[in-house]
């Protein structure tokens, strides 16, 4: 019974949270208030943990909350509940897109949508950059972070030997550098 409720709660979250993982947060607070399955403090912890484990944040939150509530089964059911509406909606849209791929109207819409999509990702990047270089309202960024960013920019764009390497190489390398130089301190 608890599994059914978990599925239903996360199905609603997946259906109404528009705009990516962080948009699920207000829904999770609401679930916490109504069900008492987990506390606000646990949610706050989870935001931090989601940023330090792989995977989309919304999915990590659903898995964690499901696990707290009903173990492994809960983790699976909550995650499936969260993604079920996405799958349904996107499948519908993509069938529709296939049908109208050659329509002038649809192509014209995408002519405008593409630069907008890129611009919105840029806006999201601005937030990530702020949180990374100026954490906790710091006024001046740590110079070591700036140096690391400059080195990574050069390695991924300018240096011939390294710019074709897989992105995960740079991510893991940065993790090692961060741990060795104690970049969070």
């Amino acid at each position, binding site marked *: 019974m608890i599994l059914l409720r978990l599925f239903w709660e996360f199905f609603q979250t997946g259906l109404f949270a528009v705009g990516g993982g962080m948009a699920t947060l207000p829904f999770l607070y609401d679930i916490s208030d109504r069900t008492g399955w987990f506390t606000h403090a646990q949610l706050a912890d989870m935001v931090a943990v989601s940023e330090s484990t792989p995977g989309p944040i919304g999915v990590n939150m659903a898995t964690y909350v499901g696990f707290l509530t009903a173990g492994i089964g809960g983790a699976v059911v909550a995650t499936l509940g969260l993604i079920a509406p996405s799958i349904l909606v996107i499948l519908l849209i993509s069938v529709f897109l296939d049908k109208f791929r050659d329509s002038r109207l649809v192509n014209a819409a995408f002519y405008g949508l593409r630069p907008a999509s890129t611009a919105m990702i840029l806006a999201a990047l601005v937030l990530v950059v702020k949180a990374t270089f100026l954490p906790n309202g710091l006024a001046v960024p740590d110079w070591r972070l700036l140096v690391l960013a400059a080195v990574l920019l050069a390695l991924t764009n300018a240096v011939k030997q390294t710019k074709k390497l897989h992105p995960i190489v740079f991510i893991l390398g940065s993790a090692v550098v961060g741990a060795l130089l104690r*970049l969070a301190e």
Partner: protein
Amino acid sequence: MFKKLAELFLTFAKVGVMTFGGGYAMLPILQREIVESKGWATEEELADYFAIGQCTPGVIAVNTATFIGRKKDGIPGGVCATLGVVFPSIVIISLLAGVITAFSELAWVKNAFAGVRVCVCVLIGNAVWKLGKKSVVDPWTAALFALIAAGAILTSWSPVVFVLFAALCGVVLKVLLHVPGKDGASK
């Protein structure tokens, strides 16, 4: 068929494992794995999927996986790709759940992730640059890009507003004003 679906599942599980820092951090990984290595989608299609993913319900990473999987192998493909992208989260979070708060408080984990976050910024920046070269193709799209970027950075309006506005602009420019140049068609 089974082999193709297994390949989709495994590829997206790999993308899920390598995505640190939320849905947008998945973009550089997708460009490498899906566009460059597998050729399952083009840069333009990725931009399309992200645009739609931002104004439809759900997690963007999941929406994008469903799109690419469905395009490659139909509805079973969409389902397998999506299950693949969430699979690592389920395993990793369930394993860590007992010690999860302690884990994120560890000094070396905090330090390592301070480095990873810098890297994710740089990688997303590169990804935006790559997408921009394909989506900003003339003065009209450049103006639209600048307008939406300013709007999205300076206001807290819903992405739905920007997406509808941009689609409308595209239709007005192409269909009513007959702006020449490459179409938005994705093949």
